[in-house]
Each structure stands twice: as C-alpha cells, then as structure tokens.
C-alpha cells in the first residue's frame, strides 16, 4: 500500500511537528484551527509529549517561551485574532532569541471577522506584529504535502537561527483534506542548545539566563545589530519560491498559499489558450524571495499580485520590482475565495486581450 495518509491540513501540520521532534504544545481554541490542538491533545501523550490547553493565547505563547527557553522543540497554533494576542510573546521570543514554531491558520478580519479563509495577516506576519525591530521566518505552504515538509524544516530553521518561525496558512489549508507522506527534511547541522535554562547541573554549572531586557542603549543597539546580522544571513540562505511557466512568461502572477493554487488553475486555462502567463509563488514570505524575481525580470512585462486581502504582499512585490515593471493587483476579502475565471479575466485585461 501507499505510504500516504489522508489528512486534514490542521492534523497534517500537527503530525509533521511531532515527527520533527516537537513534544510540547501549548494552545487555546479558535476556529478554524481547532483540529490542530485537538490532534495534539490526542497524539502527544502517545509519544510521551505534553499538551497544555492554556487559559489564553497570551498564556500559551508565554508557555512556549518558557519551554523554548528550556531547550524544547515546542509549537503553538492559532488563528488571526489569537495570533494578535500572541504578539507580545512573539516579540519577547524574537528578542530573547528563542526557537519555536507558531502556526497561523488565517481567517477573515479585521476584528472578529469571520471563520472563512483570508490572507489579511500578511503585514502582521512579515513586518512584525509585535513591538521592536525583529523578523520571523514566515513560510506559506500551498498544499498539505508542502505544509508537512515546511513544518518539518521550520523546526530546524528555528533551532539553527534561534528565531521563531511562523507557518502562515489559511482556513482553506487548515480545513481541506489531501493525502500526505511524512518524510525527513534535508538534515542541517544544528548548534547545541547550551544556552537553555535546564538547571546548572545540565550545563556544567554555567548560569544561563533567557532575557530580552537590555537597559543600556549601547548594549541594546549591539543586541539589535546582532539580530539584524542574523536576519541578513537568513535573507541570503532561506528564500524559497516556486516558479511555474516563468521562462517565457510575459505576465507573471504573484500569489502565495491557497490563492496560488487557484492561480495555477487559471494559468493552466490561459496556457491552453496560448497566453504566456507564469506564476511566481513566494513560499518564504520573509525572507521575501527577491532572487526569484531577478530570474523572471528579463522576460516579464507585467506583474499581477493576487491575494485574499486588500493588497498587502503587493507592497513587497512593488519594492522588489522597484518601478521597473507595472505591478497590478487583484484581491478578494471577507472570506471570499477568488475563482480561476476571475483571475483569468484580470490577466487577459492586463494583457490587452479582449
């Protein structure tokens, strides 16, 4: 039989985390990501792990802070309003350089919004939803196999750079089902967690302190410079993008996550009709895949960014394209998912096809 299992997105992400060695999960219920903590509550005890339903998202992320500080592979998940609550803890973790994986199964906003899928949390994810100068590595899978693979890799990236990694999904990805296969990520050499607060007896009596408070301006600037140097390394090493039909594409559609899959269907239709259209799908939203843009620039005449938002990633596309080509935008909001036909219509309009 096949090694594949049919899983719901939220479950697949949870199982992938467990297979990546995550043994601690702290969360709080919110739709549409509930299957993730539910699965964890059932599965973690089977592998000797710990699940705690926290009293709030605020508490959950701070439990993650404590557990990550004690050297564990640890995860939390939530959906948009809950992720907003976690921002305080995320900023502290970035400041204290703690590795962990955070999952956001995005729903419609602002405020309580709806439980339908959305992509309105892009700014919050890549520009820093919490206070201070920090970056999260943000990975946006478009299908469940990729979600599984990226979650596996996310733990390594987090440990390698001592930085939180955000998996940015959306309600569709969390709720849909697809067959997945669990496989190892390419092994990376990871540093020992000799900084973890596990008690002096566990690290030769050297006192460890997990902290983000740096009172002296000179010291805090030095700490920030260190963070920025780390982010510069990540920017070079961790860009990920998929290019589809871009070799001869006059129009390149830029889309991530579920939206990119709909774009693929639209592009298949357009290609059948002979139109030279391609897809650039950022997989790492931070670092933004600038290298991939460099590859498509020689041929591309126009860019069209499609999002389930009022236009957030499009700002990064414009920064990269830097005025060299027109950057168009098409977005739907409120939980409305664009159809392949809508997208094809936009493309044809830009290409001047009647």
């Amino acid at each position, binding site marked *: 039989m*096949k090694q594949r*299992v049919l899983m*719901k997105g939220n479950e697949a992400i949870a199982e992938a985390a467990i297979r990546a060695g995550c043994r601690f999960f702290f969360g709080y219920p919110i739709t549409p990501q509930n299957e993730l903590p539910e699965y964890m509550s059932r599965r973690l005890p089977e592998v000797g792990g710990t699940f705690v339903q926290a009293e709030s998202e605020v508490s959950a992320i701070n439990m993650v802070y404590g557990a990550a500080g004690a050297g564990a592979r640890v995860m939390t998940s939530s959906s948009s309003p809950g992720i907003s609550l976690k921002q305080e803890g995320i900023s502290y973790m970035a400041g204290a350089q703690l590795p962990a994986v955070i999952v956001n199964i995005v729903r419609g906003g602002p405020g309580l919004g709806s439980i339908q899928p959305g992509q309105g949390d892009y700014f919050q994810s890549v520009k820093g939803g919490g206070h201070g100068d920090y970056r999260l590595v943000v990975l946006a899978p478009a299908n469940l196999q990729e979600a599984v693979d990226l979650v596996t890799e996310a733990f390594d990236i987090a440990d390698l750079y001592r930085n939180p990694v955000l998996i940015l999904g959306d*309600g*569709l990805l969390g*709720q849909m089902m697809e067959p997945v296969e669990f496989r190892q990520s390419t092994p990376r050499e990871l540093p020992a967690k000799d900084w973890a607060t596990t008690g002096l007896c566990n690290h030769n009596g050297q006192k460890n302190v997990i902290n983000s408070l740096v009172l002296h301006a000179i010291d805090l600037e030095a700490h920030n410079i260190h963070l920025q140097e780390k982010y510069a390394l990540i920017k070079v090493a961790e860009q990920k993008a998929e290019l589809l039909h871009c070799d001869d594409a006059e129009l390149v559609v830029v889309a991530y996550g579920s939206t990119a899959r709909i774009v693929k269907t639209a592009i298949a239709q357009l290609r059948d009709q002979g139109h030279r259209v391609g897809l650039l799908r950022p997989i790492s939203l931070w670092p933004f895949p600038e290298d991939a843009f460099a590859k498509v620039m020689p041929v591309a005449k126009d860019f069209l960014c499609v999002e389930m938002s009022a236009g957030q990633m499009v700002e990064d596309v414009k920064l990269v394209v830097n005025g060299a080509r027109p950057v168009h935008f098409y977005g739907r909001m409120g939980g409305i998912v*664009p159809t392949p036909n809508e997208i094809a219509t936009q493309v044809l309009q830009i290409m001047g096809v009647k």
Partner: protein
Amino acid sequence: MNSLWHHRVSIITGSYGSGKTEVAINLSLAKRSFYGNEAIVSLIDVDIVNLYFRSRDKFEELAKRGIHVIAPAGDLRHADLPALPASISGSLHDTQQQVVLDVGGDPAGATVLGRYQADLPEGSYDMILVVNPYRPYTDNVDAMQRLISAIESKSRLRITALCNNSNLMGFTTPEDLLRGQDLLGELEVRTGLPTAFVSCVPAIAPAVSVMLPNVPVLQLGLYMLPPWATGNNYAGEV
C-alpha cells in the same frame, strides 16, 4: 426497498475526514432518484464540528437537484455555533420524507444525535459508519471498533451498517477499496455489522464492482471540492 438503505432515515456517521458529507449528499441524491421527483428528500446538516466543506455550503446546488438541505439559516450558516434548526425533529417524524443526516465527525460530532434519541427509536433508522482506513485513528480494526463504541455511547443510538469509503482522494485505486474491505470484513466478523455499500468516484466504480461483486457501490459525484479544483476526479498536487 433498495440495497443501500432499509429505512426512511439514514444517519451518516464516522470519524472525521472519513468522507461522510460526500456520502450523505450522494445518498440523498440516490434516494431522490430512487423514489422519483415527487419524493421529499431532506439532507440534515447536523455537523457542528466541521467548519468548511459542509453540506450546507451546497445548499443552492442541491436544492436545484431536489434535495432540501436543513441547516442553520442566514448568518448562522457561516458560523461555528452549535445552532440547530427547529425543523429537524419535524423531518424525523414526517413519514412522507426521506431523510439523510450528515453528522459531524468522531464521537464529538455524534454527540448531537443524543439530543434526538427520543425521535429515533431503534429499528426506525439506518446508521451507517463511514470508514476510510487511510485516515489516522481508523487505520486498523481495533481502532474502528473503538470508534463504533465511542460513537454509539455518545449518540445513544446503534450503528446498523458499514460503508467502505477507502480513499486517498484522487489517488485512490480499486485496490485501495479492496484492502479497505479486508479490514471491514474483519470488522463485520467482530461486530456482526454488514457492509451496506462501498463508495467511490464513477471512474473506478466498474473496477470496484468487479473486485467486490457482493457489495453494492454508491457512486460519488464530488461536491466538496477546493476552489482550484476542476473536474470530478480531482487529484490534488503532491
């Protein structure tokens, strides 16, 4: 009667992600087609566990095909509130109606049935456990048996038959259903429950019929497709 059902009320239950909603929709359509255009067929969405891909999402499309979908109305249709419509009891008692209940997954989803226990005396309904052994927690017979006990305990109803819905979505082969039937065969022996039918997409239905000649096949037109899918045999991309 028909080999897919014995009673007016068919309750579709199972672990979540087993494919209950597709089975429930297609069973409703089968009832409609069996009893003809005059028949009232109600599909009752009592899935208070799941959020997306619920039968209520296909309200208009199913209405055109003569299926009356009973689900929370208006804004509540898009909410994650356990707001059950008042008309459910009426449909369960209306002997003129054919009824299919699309129940939420797992014992958690089946709990809501306990609330209708008085409306569902034993012997008045089929309660079908949809099984997909390619799902976690239903990949072996022990687990399936545990699921049956848990659903029966929560719903306070008896499961009467099994549905073999072995699938890996578009990657499903007839052999996958055959392998699933091996497990269900063992489950039949242990529980005494018969397999009411196997369910699969039309493309592989003929091959499945050949391999499993003694089990009726419910062909599944797929309704719960993601927005990028085209065609009935959507495979996804892996």
